[in-house]
Every structure is written in C-alpha cells, then in structure tokens.
C-alpha cells in the first residue's frame, strides 16, 4: 500500500541524487531503488518530474519527486 503525501521537503543531494531528506524527522537514504521520469500534466503547464524511489537506512520506502531542472523537492508517496 502507498499513501500520497505531496508535501514539500528538504533534501540533501550528492551529484543530483538524494542522500537524505527531512519529513518531520531526518531520514538517511540507504539506496535509490528506482528512478524515472514523468511528463506530468503538460496541458496545465507542468514540467517533467524526476521520481526517486528510495529506501532509508531504517528500511522505509519513499518516493521523492522534483521538477527537472529545479531544486524543489516533494515527498510524493510513502510505502507502508
């Protein structure tokens, strides 16, 4: 099961990849499980988004997203 969160978050990056993020508390990213691109709602002027499915050091799975070319990150989904 997943829950859509859609909240802005702070992310630490290295070489463009997320290494940690803060959502209520700080999570270290142990592994980027998957990364892909989504065009978004282009008809509403949305930019393409980069999605990272990550596993934290505590074993949680989250999906983080950001618009291509931007530093604004959002927590997209949480995997229960």
């Amino acid at each position, binding site marked *: 099961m997943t829950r859509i969160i859609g909240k802005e978050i702070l992310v630490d990056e290295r070489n463009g990849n997320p290494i940690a993020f803060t959502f209520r508390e700080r999570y270290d990213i142990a592994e980027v499980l*998957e*990364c*892909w*691109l*989504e*065009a978004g709602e*282009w008809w509403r002027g949305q930019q*393409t988004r980069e999605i990272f499915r990550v596993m934290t050091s505590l074993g949680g799975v989250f999906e983080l997203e950001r618009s291509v070319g931007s530093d604004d990150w959002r927590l997209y989904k949480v995997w229960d």
Partner: protein
Amino acid sequence: MFVHLHVHSMYSMLHGASRLEELLQKAALEGAPALALTDRDSVAGLAEFLRLAPQYGVRPISGVDFTLEEEGRIVLLAQNDEGYEQICRLVTEAHQINRLVPQTSRRGLSRYRDGLIALTGGRFSDVSAYLLRREYHLARERLLFYRNLYGRDQLYVALSRTSLPGDASLVQHLLCLSDECGLGVVAANDVHYAVSSDFPVHDILVCMRTKTTVDQTHPARPLNSENDLKSAEQMKGLFADCPEAVANTVLIAQRCAATPRLGQSLFPQFTVPDGYEDGKEMLRQLVYQGAVRRYGSMDEVPRARLDHELEIIHQLGYVDYFLVVWDIAAFARRRKIRYAGRGSAADSAVAYCLYITDVDAAGRNLLFERFMSLERAEKPDIDIDFDSLRRDEVRDYVYQRYGADHVASVCTYSTFRGRSAVREIGKALGLPEGVCANLAKRLPYMLHADQIEAALARLPELRAARIPQERLRLLFAIARRLAGFPRHFGTHVGGVVISHTPLLRITPLQPSAKGILITQFDKDGAENLGLVKLDLLSLRTMSAIEDTNRQLEEQGRPLDYDEIPLDDEETFEMIAKGETIGVFQLESPAQRALQSRLAASALEDIVASVALIRPGPIKGNMVDPFLARKKGLEGITYLHPKLEPILGKTYGVVLFQEQVIEIATAIAEFTPGEADQLRRVMSHARSGAEMDQIGQDFIRKALRCGVNEQVAETIFSYMRGYASYGFCEAHAAAFAATAYKTAYLARHMPAEFFAAIINAQPMGYYPRHVLAAEARRRGVHVLGVDVNQSAAQAKGGEGYIRLGFLQVLGMREETARQIDLKRRCGGPFASLGDFCERVTDIDRLTAERLIRAGAFDFLQGNRKALLWALPEAIAASRAARESGELIAHVRCEDDERSFSIEDFSPQERLSAEYQILGIGISGHWMAQYRDELTRAACLPIDQALAGMDGSVVSVAGIIIRPHRPPTKSGRTVVFFSLEDETGMADVTVFQDVYQRDGAVLFDPRRHMIGVRGVLQRRQGGAPQIMARRVWSL
C-alpha cells in the same frame, strides 16, 4: 555510430507523432548512417521513406512493428526483397485476421520468416511482458521459440532505457536471457517522435486512440517524453555499460538492403492476339483503325501527330498501358456502359482514336506534352468516368482479366482537417463536447487543420460561437502539428493498380469496409514503387444520362445521346440566360452568372466557361477581360507576336494550362518538360520563392531569345496570375461536351432529365427541392410519392415528374422494388391494410414515412388517421401471413375512429414532406409566411428580380449553398442562392456586410433568412442581389 531500428512515423496512425521528413532530418542532423521505419502493422510510409531518405543522406531500412495476436509486439526488418515480401504477406494476414485491430499470429510468423531480422525485447515485446510479470520461464520459452524460428543470427534482444519505472531490472533480465540463449542485443528507443517537444502531440494521439481525455489515466498513455530520436551520443551514454548493444545497430543496418526498389516497371504486358507482330504494332493498327472511324477517311487523319504520340508512348514504355486502357474502354462499349475519358489524357489524339476520350486533341490542337513528355518522369494518368451504377462491372472485368492477385484498389489517407481536428483534439483535451461540436460545425468543410486559428479570427460565424479562445490555444497548436497527418485509411474513388508480378510482392493488401482489397500505399506511394494507377471513376451524371435515355425508351421515343446536335439554338439560348440548374459543370451561381454574361453560342464558349470559373482565372483576374474581349468591348492585343497563335482562341487571355506551357516554350524556349515543371509549380501554388526562381529562369531565357525584358516580365506576371489551380483545355473540352449535352436534355426533355438527376442524388450542386423548383419553373409538375402511381425511381412523363419510392427517407431498395412489383402483379392497393398485407418487406417506420409524405393520400387524405390505423394494419397483415389464411383486405382506415381524428395542419404536412422527400409537394415552405413577409416589405423573389437595376429590394427565402470561393482581391465574399415559392435569387455578400451579419449564413440551425440589397445586372447578365443586410427569420 548508432542506428535507430525501431521508429514510428505518422503512418503508424495515432501511434507516431512525426512526419517522415522530420525523422530523416533529425537522423541526418545526428549523422546517422541509416534509419529504419517500423510503423505499426503497416508499410504505408515506406515508399515515401525510401524516396526521401537518400535526399537526407540516410540509408533507409524497411520494417514493421507487428502487433502479436496474444500480446506484445515484434519488430521485423527486411534484409532484402524476399524479406520485404514476407513482411507484405504478414501485414496482409494481420489485417485479414482483424480488419480494425490487425494482429499477427505465431503461425504466421512461422510461415513468413525468410530474409528478416527480428527484434524482440524492449518494453513492447511479449518476452518483456512475461519478465515484467516475473514469469521468467515463460519469457525464456518465448525467446527460444523466436530463436528456433529466426536463428541466432537473425534474432536480437532489444534493450530500451526510456526512464520508465522498472527499466533497470527489465534490462538486466533481458541481458541475462540473451546471454543464456546466445543472442545478440541491440539498443532501441521505440521512437514515436523526432524531438521530445512533440511528446504532447503523441500523448494526444494516444488519448484519441484510447478514447480518453488528458485528465484520465490509461495504461497506454506514455509516461514521459523519452521516446524521441536520440543522438548517437545519447544512446551511447544510456548504454555505456553495454556498448555491443549500440554497435549491433550498425551491423544490422549494414545487413539490410533498401527494399523494395523504387521505380520498377511493374505494369503487365498486354497479351497481343495472333496477327500482330507485337504490342507496338497492335497499338498502331488500333489507332489507325480508330482514326479512320473518327475522321471519316484516311485523308483527314492527322498522321504526323499520331505518329509523334505513338513514338513517345513507345519510347516511354507505355504501349501496354494504352492497350490495357483501350481494352477496358472496349469492354465498356461492348457492354453499353456509358463512359467518358477526362483529364489530361484528352490531350492525346491516340486516346481519342482509341475511343478512350471524346476530345479531338488533334483537331483542337491540344498539347500532347501536357499529358506525356520525354522530359517528364511522371507516369501518364488516364481517368475515365463510368456510369456510377455500372462502374463495378468494369472493375470486375479488370480483376477477371488480369487475375485477382494482380489487381487491387488504391488506398487513400484522409488527413486531419479543421473539423475533425477540432472534434478529436478538443475531446482529448477534455473540452466540453458541445463547445467542440459548435466550433467544428462552423468551420468551412475543407479547411486544413493548421488554418483553424486564422479562420476563427476571420469568420464572424466562428466568433459568434462564443468559445473561450484562451482554452483553445493548445488545441490550435496541436492541430497545426497534426495538419496533414493521415487519420483514416480509405479506398480511392476509382484508382486501380495492375501489376505483372503478384501484388503481395510489392504491397500488403488490406480489406476495406466493403471487403475490397486495397493497397497500403496511396496513389503516390504506389507510383513510386512502379505501379501504374488507372482511374476507373464513377460519375453520377453518366447514370442520370443513362436514366433519361431509359425513360425516353420506355415512352417509345428513344434518343441517341451520342448524336445530340452540338449546335442546337434553343439549348444555347437557355444556357445564355443562365438557366442551367441541373446542367453538368454549369449550375453553380458563378457559372450561371457567367453564362448570362457570356452568351455562349458554340461549344467552344462552353469549353472556355468550364475553365473560367476556377480559382486560377478568378484570382488572376481573367474573367472580365475575357468577356469584354469576346464581346468586342475591349481590343485584343498581344504583348508579343508569338503569343497570338497561342492565346488567339481565348482572346489574348491565359485560360488553359496548355497555354502556359506553350508560352514558356515559344517565348523562352523552355523544353516541354521544363515548361511542364513551371505549370506544376504554379498549379500547386507552391512557395513564392519557387515561383520567383522559375520567373528568373523564364526572363533570363526569354532575354536570350531576344525578347524585351519588360515584355518578358509582363508576360510572366500574367502566367503568375494563373498561380493557383487552373484547368487544362483537354479536361475542359471533355467536360464541356457533357455539359452541353446535359443542357440539351434539360432543355428538350426536362421531365425525364430532372427525374433522372433527382434519382441520382446526391450529385451536383443543389439539393432536391431546388431541382424540383427548377423543373416546376420549366412547366413540369412535380407529383409526390403515391403507392399506386410511383415506381421505385422518379419518372418523367408528359409535363410531370412522379417521385419514386426511393425518394422516401430511409427507404430500402428491396422494399421500393417490392411495392412496385406487388402493385404491377396484383393491381392497385385498395387500402392501407391491403398494402401491409401484400408488401411483406415493409417495416413500420417506412410505412409511417410513406403516409406522412402523402403516399396514401388517394385513400381519404387524412394522414394522421392513417398513422393511427397503421399498427393495427401491420398486426392484422402479419397475423394473416403467419396463419397462412387469406383474409379479406383489412381496411383499418375505414374504422369510424379514423374520421374523428383531425388531420395534420397544412404546415405539419408540408414539414413532413420536406423532411421525408426533401421536396415540398403540397406547397412551398415560404408560401405560408407570405402575408407576414408582405407586411415586412419583403417581395416575392420573382417580383424583386423584375425590378429596375439599382433598386433596393428586400426578399426572404431558404438559403442554399452559401460558399466563400477565392477572390482576386483575397477578401471574403459570400455567394448563395435564396429560394421562395416564386423563384430563386442569387445573392452576393461583400466583406463588410459579411463581417457584420455573416454569422447567420453558415449557422446550421437556420434555413430561412431575409436579405435587403441592391438589384444589379452586370453587363446585361442575370439579376443578382448585392446584400446590404442579411438577417435570420
């Protein structure tokens, strides 16, 4: 280096968002040595792709992306001609399995596998589908199946990295499997557009295909814009860990030859009967025999001209083509199927002597090079119009004569036009359906998809639609991109190709909705491949002529149509008054207005008038000078003495395409081929730059020939004035003969002729009620449908037309024939019950329509009472039939209940007649408003038109065929006709009035309008109303 081996173009129909040129341009820009075209279940784009690719320095590879019957897809690339044939056979089979959703079976793949390289894997394949479902053993099994089928060297596993979820693991598994099975890998990007900025277009196409809107999700919707034609660097970067996947694309490309070959000679050799040395000899003899029959004696035969033409035909290798066409025409003559050759073929004296055309090209001194020339690479195009009711007999003969494997109809691709683009893109964008429909309905019918935005600004009826324009910006942008994209696959109206080799070696054949097999290439594609198209067209005018003849024969006064005198004064008198509604090619308001000014007195005038009312002469401002000079109101001068013999017959005006060629030849010594290039550039209204270049060549060459620079420039300006489409004289002459003869029929046997053209509807320019009004104007009574008087078709008699059952809305042909037959065999119908009992084929809706249209008025005239009685009559007759008992005629309408029912009002009756028959029988729609119109100072049309020139009149009527033809000024002018119970008026609305009041003219919901304007008779022509105000009634 890298070669894209999995690429879709717009020919993938809603799967590809780029034109071939765009894909090739991008490939060339990226320095790709080759490019494969692998459209979905189709090779339709291949002929053009093969033609264009060398121009971009790219080697073309032919392939298809096949949809598999079970799931997934497989890409097959043709290594050689054999492989291409296998692809054609597979595509053909795929479309036979499912016409609308083609599917390829594994059995088919097993049957047709030679000369092919197969790509499986990627995201698209069945193998990957198994892997994504984690069914590894099934994936392996399927891959081994393909390996057994194609062999290790011919099968590759495609890998794609298009930034989709699961990409990494899928590629990893595919790499493992390929390794395990000993197969090579290739990088493939499943290209759907040349550049990623076209992703929205692709997404919209997918929405159209899946019938979703952009706001709805669907598994087929693309997730991102990564399926573009990436550069070699990008691909190398994506597959840095697997360089052999990139290298293999180049190796595969090297193993594939460009196939099929273009420009082969595929036309069949005509089987020459004994007694002739060869086809050339046979053609010569047939031409000479025909010439003697055409010209009366050998002395009159233009031998030099015929020999010249025969020599060119022989040199270009079209002897067999002419023999085949001669054979088809001879078949039609033997079967008495009416036909007429048209188009530029009428420039040929050989075609005339072979009885393919009826225009004496030599006698008219027509330019053969307009039709065929040594310099021109294009194939000759012979178009023949056949009686539309019997055209299929001719086509069947061709199939039978040359073998079903060797003959097929040519396909056409209808492209996105304004209306369809608005409806479909709007729907996909989630715009309200009402908004899209409202806008679409108001767009001019033939408007291209990239002209919508301009039309919206220009046309007041579109502004009146009150559509939120900002919401449409996206729609317009996408419509512009989709303009010219093929949308639907269809059958060419008459194009048939014949090949000496089985067609499946050249093209897949797919069944049309009617079951006819059609090529996957359109006319141009088929010709690129070396197929020659014959146009066996059907023309309803031919059917109407035949119908008129038949009616006259039944009356015991047969007419020899071919012997109609070409100098009948009464016919020319009628034409000169512009009374030409119903006459082939001469019935539009513009033609009628021209005829009344032209005062034609000979067939030549008709030839000129057919060519005059065309965009070229109108925009080139040639109509008025032509008329003024013909009437002697303006002197005829020539800018150069060499122009006199060319333009003499058209009073110094450039009117025909042949004249353009002759001028270029005479003044600037263009070769006929060069001159024809000039005509093509002009007639296709290509870019101004191209025209300027031709102009420079013309002036340069003219100067070299000693022509004064100013004169050369002026002459070219006349030729340039011809810029958009003009007619060739041969075509005009072919049409003129039919135009004159149909005018003769309208003049001398109006009842039969107008009955025939009512039967042949839809055809011509006017709806049925206008044709009926015209027949009435000529003193012919138009009688309604009557179950005891009518036949299946309308028929003319002494001063009347009796409408037929087939004029009833929705009437089936079998039902119409049964009514006629039952009455003829069993006598008149005595009652409604009798009718229902004997006409077993009748259904309730049709019977209702017959009653409402007045077909039973002979009983007691109360249509509403009959409608009430109908269910009982049908039930009783059905019961009688089921019980097998013969019962006395049910006379439900005599039921006393019937007499207590009040009949429909006159307005309701009339409305039903218009709705069901398309013609008012009990009166004219406008007549019922006459008192009100009189109070509003609107005159009956006949009175208004009798007024003084310059007087201001107000009229009202039913609007007929409003249209906006091109004008010389480029401003919008609307022409339409207005009909009331007393006649018809032609109305012109100029731009200022149109911009203010024009919204009512093209509103599909409004049929009655009022017009106030000035009565004008131009140069003694028929009266017209120049509108000052137009309003909706």
